[in-house]
């Protein structure tokens, strides 16, 4: 028996040793840069002999919170890493790609165990917010290395300045616009949405502001039932829609809708321990507008059941060719192949102006961030500078025939935007340079603070707002008290903030 117990003890010890032999733990306390590094970074003495791999500082690059996990994206990422490692002999950059579905859990576990990676991304606001408080303020390193931020639109640099500091630098940007189907406008005898933010719209021969009221009217006329009647005509059958005028394509969240229609706003007030929801009334009205658009007497948007129906694209509504307009960021160009192959064509128009007469844009953005617990932040920033700098962009975003680009998006660095636009022109031959200029113009109107701004207990508060929007999409007015549900959501948000 003694031997049996010995064997069991040995097994337990082996188990524990194996568990301990996983990723080496980094210091749990994030080393805050106590002093800003000197502006002129000291030159490193050139080694007489190339250092062995073991002498290099290892910097781990975690990919998985956003784009970058598809097998087709790996070669470019691997090439960027190999090129960087070959370009210098101080740092060994190591790529860690984790499937999207498990990336959050994996990263959270690594961070909780103090073994987080040094570089994380590309990641959007949503993915970043789940790890609020974990991001390194890059300001000291930007200053010490003389990283040139003037190449970016200042609004985009400012976009990444949060309470935590400069937590990112502009990298991939996805400004929003209105995608529309010209053929449907022609059929309805309507003018196309304007292509410039200053332009007016011509409705029934009169020049009017391109605002949400105008868009609503246009969308109603583009919403058609089985009998061919539009939503403004007598006898229109709202229960049998064949085509909708407007789609909030994959922008189905309280904050997205409100940012577009009412404009960006700080939605949390107070200090730690006493946070409260501060969603303005204009946000409530914006969501009410969406609800009426779906369930009102003259609907012009698809309800949840309709948008989820196979005939309407199983959620990818505009791609099904059954929506005349779709409001969504540039990344939606990912998912229009069926639309194109079915012979449809789209163009782009600017977003309507809000009640204040100003355009309220939205810019989704992916960047690569640094973990504040990194034991080697200087080296991590150096590697990051490479990835988001010209060489990295060439490999990761522009690509070559042999190694295609890993990421699809408009580079924030204007010098590299044209290759991406060329790719879109090739993919959607019916578009022109002017089509994509509409999106570029949207960069001047980012939603700052972002619709995906941080809220306390972000995962849960974001999910609560999502639940509210899901309710709007799926519940007809006779079964929903909008005001009561809104108040309940605000109450729940305050409870969530207080947790």
């Amino acid at each position, binding site marked *: *028996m003694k*031997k*049996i117990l010995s*064997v*069991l003890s040995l*097994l*337990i010890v*082996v*188990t524990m040793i*194996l*568990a301990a032999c996983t990723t080496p733990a980094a210091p*749990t*306390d*994030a080393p805050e840069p106590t002093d800003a590094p000197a502006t002129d970074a000291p030159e490193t003495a050139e080694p007489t002999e190339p250092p062995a791999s073991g002498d290099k500082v290892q910097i781990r690059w975690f990919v998985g919170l956003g784009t970058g996990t598809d097998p087709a994206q790996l070669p470019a990422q691997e090439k960027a890493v190999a090129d960087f490692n070959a370009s210098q002999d101080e740092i060994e950059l190591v790529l860690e790609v984790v499937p999207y579905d498990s990336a*959050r*859990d994996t990263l*959270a*576990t690594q*961070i*909780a165990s*103090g073994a*987080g990676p040094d570089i994380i991304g590309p990641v959007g606001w949503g993915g970043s917010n*789940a*790890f*609020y*408080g*974990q991001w390194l303020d890059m300001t000291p390193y930007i200053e010490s290395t003389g990283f040139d931020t003037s190449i970016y639109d200042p609004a985009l640099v400012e976009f990444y300045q949060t309470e935590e500091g400069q937590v990112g630098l502009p990298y991939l940007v996805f400004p929003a616009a209105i995608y529309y189907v010209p053929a449907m406008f022609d059929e309805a005898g309507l003018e196309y949405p304007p292509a410039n933010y200053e332009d007016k719209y011509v409705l029934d021969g009169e020049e009017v502001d391109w605002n949400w009221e105008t868009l609503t009217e246009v969308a109603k006329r583009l919403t058609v039932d089985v009998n061919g009647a539009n939503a403004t005509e007598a006898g229109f059958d709202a*229960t049998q829609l064949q085509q909708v005028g407007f789609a909030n394509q994959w922008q189905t969240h309280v904050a997205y809708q409100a940012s577009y229609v009412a404009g960006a706003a700080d939605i949390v007030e107070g200090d730690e321990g006493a946070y409260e929801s501060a969603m303005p009334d204009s946000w409530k009205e914006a969501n009410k507008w969406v609800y009426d658009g779906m369930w009102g007497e003259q609907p012009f948007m698809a*309800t*949840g*059941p*309709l948008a*989820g*129906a*196979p*005939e*309407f694209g199983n959620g990818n509504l505009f791609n099904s060719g059954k929506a005349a307009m779709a409001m969504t960021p540039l990344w939606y160009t990912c998912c229009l192949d069926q639309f194109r192959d079915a012979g449809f064509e789209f163009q782009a128009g600017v977003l309507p102006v809000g009640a204040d007469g100003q355009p309220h844009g939205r810019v989704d953005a992916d960047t690569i961030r640094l973990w*504040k*617990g990194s034991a080697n932040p200087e080296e991590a920033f150096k590697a990051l500078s490479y990835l988001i700098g010209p060489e990295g962009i060439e490999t990761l975003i522009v690509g070559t025939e042999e190694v295609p680009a890993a990421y699809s998006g408009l580079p924030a660095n204007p010098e590299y935007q044209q290759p991406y636009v060329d790719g879109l022109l090739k993919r959607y031959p019916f578009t022109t340079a002017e089509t994509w200029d509409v999106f570029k113009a949207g960069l001047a109107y980012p939603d700052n603070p972002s619709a995906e701004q941080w809220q306390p*207990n*972000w*995962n*849960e508060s974001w*999910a609560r707002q*999502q*639940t509210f929007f*899901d*309710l709007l999409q*799926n*519940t*007809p007015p*006779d*079964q*929903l008290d909008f005001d009561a549900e809104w108040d*309940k959501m605000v109450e729940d948000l305050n409870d969530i903030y207080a947790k």
Partner: protein
Amino acid sequence: MFEQLSNFRNSLPSLRSFRNLPPLARRELKQATWFLSPWLFGFLVFTLIPIIATLVFTFINLKITDGVSSPLKWVGFSNYQTLWNDNQAGVNPSSWFRGGTPGALWVTIAFGLIALPVGIFLPLGIAVLMNNKHLKAPNFFRSLFYMPYIVPFVAAVFLWGGMLNSQTGWINRFLIEVLHVSRDSVPMWANSGAEEWGWIYGTYVMMGIWGIGNAMLIMLAGLQGVPTELYDAAKVDGANSWQTFWKVTFPMISPVIFYNLTLSIVGLFQYFLVPLVVNQGTGRPGGFTMFYNLYLYRNFFQFQNMSYGATLAWVLFIIILAVTILLFWSAKYWVYYASETRS
């Protein structure tokens, strides 16, 4: 059952008995241990240690997104206290419908009360039909009823979701176009509002029927195991069909029903997939589809609140254990084991 457990414990060898084993037996035991060691290793690493870890989690404040910024603290029974006061979890029955929202435990139990009879009696009824001597091509029908069980359940749920789409689904189209039901009167199925939550649960039950093939097969095996001489004796005694079923068939297959009932109850407490896919796991409408296990999943994986998620999991375990013990206790009153004499 407790008596059986007690007997089993007494039959276990003591340490002394191991020492007194003959050399051959000791060697065999040693070899057996080596053969078992991979399983023991896996059990320790992948089952026992995680189970213990989750129990420890319930007494600390591990919220994984807090990461390095939040040191771990021993919080005693604070997580259990929070759970008791959590209206949405609904572990405390007095919190059900506080603020108009049903507790997750209420949702689970209410749905269970609807789904359980269907999940037990429908497969039993089909099995009885399948076992009927007058049925032509029984194997064909058995395969037909079992076939849906082979289809992955997620795929089936998507399929049903399409069929039951309130605006474009085939079922509502049939109601409107063939049966001429008015558009305003057709059910919204899973998209029904909070006041019509019964429709939602009915929809879920309907989707669940898709997977009764396995239960039907087990019932059928039980039915085929009933000795035919019992039926002959009942016939001689002048029993009619109902009496034969109730006095002969049911007692003889009661262990099989008991088995299915136990699994169904455990499965219902862990009900998760359908509301996650059909109603996007949001609990829409008004929390009526926020099942306990879904709530647990959201806290654990979506909100990454590991301590609270673990607390929910342990409380669920305790509830399931209590219900199962109750069920085993009740078995002596209605489950008949022909081969045993029960005290």
